[in-house]
């Protein structure tokens, strides 16, 4: 059974081919890691899944529905996915709590009490309960990123998209973010993530995809792709990052 599948997905900006015939399948409870150099198409792939970018060709299916059909309202799709960005993108003019409760309240029409309870639950879990009333700019990068994660999880998404969520963090803050993600994976959260954290990919991923110039050159379990890659390109990439 698949939750998300991409078949022959293409995307280019001008002359530059960013995604070139990408096939990918994510089953429920999978943790799929996209690895590859900057500019290899990892972020674009995530943005296409979320319909923030329009694909040039190919089909993306989510829970059996072709979401690249122009008749599909992107909102109905996004409502069922959570996304966390590299630069957190919290709303700077709202409190931490409001950042988390806004979407459940206005998009999912969850009541105020219920959405607050859920937000406090998540903040508590991520060790940020005392920051509920703080403004995002009063928080460290690592704290902001955990708030962004809480915001994405508030509406209980069926799929979590994570775009290099540790890349903007100081090295000592990366660990705490990864620990939170490990927990989520252990609980069975379905995740598709672009990452440079090879240790995390090795320990947590059910499958690893190596992207190079918009193509998935190699995919398989981490024990294969990261340990004994078939492709020379993958070997070169891993030598550089490990």
């Amino acid at each position, binding site marked *: 059974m698949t939750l998300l599948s991409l078949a022959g997905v293409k995307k280019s900006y001008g002359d530059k081919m960013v995604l070139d015939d990408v096939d990918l399948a994510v089953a429920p409870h999978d943790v799929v890691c996209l690895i590859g150099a900057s500019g290899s198409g990892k972020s674009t792939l995530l943005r296409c899944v979320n319909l923030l970018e329009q694909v040039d060709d190919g089909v993306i299916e989510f829970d059996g529905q072709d979401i690249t059909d122009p008749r599909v309202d992107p909102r109905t799709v996004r409502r069922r996915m959570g996304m966390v960005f590299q630069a957190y993108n919290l*709303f700077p*003019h709202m409190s931490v709590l409001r950042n988390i409760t*806004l979407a459940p309240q*206005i998009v999912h029409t969850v009541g105020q009490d219920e959405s607050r309870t859920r937000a406090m639950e998540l903040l508590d879990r991520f060790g940020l309960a005392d920051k509920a009333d703080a403004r995002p700019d009063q928080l460290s990068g690592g704290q902001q990123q955990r708030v962004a994660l809480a915001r994405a999880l508030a509406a209980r998404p069926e799929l979590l998209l994570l775009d290099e969520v540790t890349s903007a963090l100081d090295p000592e803050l990366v660990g705490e973010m990864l620990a939170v993600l490990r927990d989520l994976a252990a609980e069975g959260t379905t995740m598709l993530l672009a990452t440079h954290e090879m240790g995390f990919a090795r320990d947590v991923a059910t499958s690893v995809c190596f992207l190079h110039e918009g193509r998935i050159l190699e995919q398989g379990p981490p024990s294969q792709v990261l340990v004994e890659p078939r492709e020379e390109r993958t070997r070169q990439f891993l030598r550089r990052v490990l």
Partner: protein
Amino acid sequence: MSVSAVELERRRVRRSQSLRRALLATLATVVFFGVVGLLVTSSQGWPVVKRTFFDPHSAVDAFPSVIKGFGLNVVMFLVAEPVILVLGAAVAIVRGTRSAALFPLRVVAVLYTDVFRGIPSILLVFLFALGVPALRLTGVPTSLFWLALIALVVSYGAYVAEVFRAGIESVHPSQVASARALGFSNAQTMRHVVLPQAVRNVVPPLLNDFVSLQKDTALAGAVGVFEALFAARDYANFHFNFTPYVVTAVLFVALTVPLARLTDYLGRRSLGGRLSGVAR
């Protein structure tokens, strides 16, 4: 708290440095204004200028009618400002909509800003005050005061719409992306994410436009609204003395300076916010 001898010495030096700076500033100011004052008062025409522009008797004599006219300027400003804000924001929001059904409104909004930003405010005052009554429409105000006020609203509304639009565009695209990713509609993104940040960004330029509007209420005098400048001109033409112009100028300065200072203050504060965390 005990302080080391080095720090004590540094503090003593800083104190004497700032004393020297204050003295120099005072001296320079006295010399500068002394020289300017001397140049002006020693000029050949000064006695005549003094009599026609700085005559205390005429100032006192004209003051009641000038201040009464100035009341109209203040009322115009106070009525026009909120209307302009609403109009400008509405036009900017309409330009940012995407719904197909709203296309005609977007066309109107673009035409409105293009046309009315391009026409000099004084010309608009003439067109409204002289043209609208000639149409003989029922239900449209014929009072020159209201027509001039509408002209100013229309003219400044176009400017303010562009200020708001710039503010909307200044909100980082990543904010819109993350709102979309949460499933917000366009309207929800605008209302909850973009507009609150846009408004904060445009407060200083908006206040700047309002300083300008305060002065431009004097344009109503051109079509015979008895505001401060018209009252001053009335007096000047009758008594051959221009002192009321200076009185009017002083009143306008007194009105605009507080708003200008507020603009500076808010500008500095938002800059301070943006620089926080950056080494200064």
